């Protein structure tokens, strides 16, 4: 099972979905040595994922990444559409592309990819399984039109540090913010 179902553990663990954080991102608009060189973006995502291992949840610091909407193009591949979490696992070469794109590949390229064997496709992203606690949203794609999903993902390049006085250990932390455990 992707999520803890029978009982949600009363500890914060790597991968747990949490709610209620404020994220800030500095955007450099000029050389950093110049004055007024950056703007600050503030984001309040509904849900985030804990990226600190449980044993490191202490000292008033954690790392999190916001749950974000999927790339609509993922749904062009029926192998992924059946189960988006397949993106998290190694995929056979012929299933890494939509069938019509695979067929159009030069034969040499097909052979090269098949020789690599099963492999990961999107190293920067991790897909979270749909769940009743995850709100549905609509996506748009030229080929697929408008469609609904409640799969979400995180992007590992999108990690934020949070300072909080209440973060002391994986047991003594903001457990009430835990929505789903993996």
């Amino acid at each position, binding site marked *: 099972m992707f999520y803890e179902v029978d009982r949600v553990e009363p500890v914060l663990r790597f991968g747990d979905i949490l709610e209620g954080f404020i994220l800030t991102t500095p955007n450099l608009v000029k050389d950093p040595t110049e004055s007024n060189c950056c703007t600050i973006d503030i984001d309040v995502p509904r849900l985030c994922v804990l990226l600190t291992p449980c044993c490191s949840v202490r000292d008033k610091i954690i790392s999190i990444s916001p749950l974000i909407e999927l*790339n609509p*193009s993922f749904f062009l591949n029926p192998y992924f559409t059946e189960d988006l979490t397949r993106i998290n696992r190694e995929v056979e070469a012929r299933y*890494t592309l939509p069938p019509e794109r695979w067929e159009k590949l030069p034969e040499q390229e097909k052979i090269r990819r098949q020789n690599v*064997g099963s492999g990961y496709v*999107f190293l920067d992203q991790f897909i979270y399984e749909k769940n009743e606690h995850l709100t549905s949203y609509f996506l748009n794609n*030229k080929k697929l039109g408008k469609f609904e999903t409640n799969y979400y993902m995180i992007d590992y390049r999108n990690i934020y540090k949070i300072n909080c006085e209440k973060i002391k250990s994986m047991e003594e932390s903001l457990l009430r913010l835990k929505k789903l455990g993996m």
Partner: protein
Amino acid sequence: MNICAERMHKIMDPRYLDELKEMDILRRQETGNIQFSDYKIIDYPLGKYLIKIKLTLNNEFIGVIEIGLNKNFLSHKQKLSTINHHNVEDYYLDE
């Protein structure tokens, strides 16, 4: 002969002087790092081979002890790449 005389006698004996020198060396050695030999053996990677070479303590060549295969043959890039990855990002651009 009293003890002091006995010790004096020992010090004057050249065989005991060597023993004293070795003891001095022992005193200055770190624990677990005692070498009594006058040579050392190093592993020298040469292409796909690993050669065990005997050298003096002054790094002068004495001889080759063993030639074996260097099983650590992966290149640095290969060592870094421990997972298979299919580059498909270009086929999934958001449109």
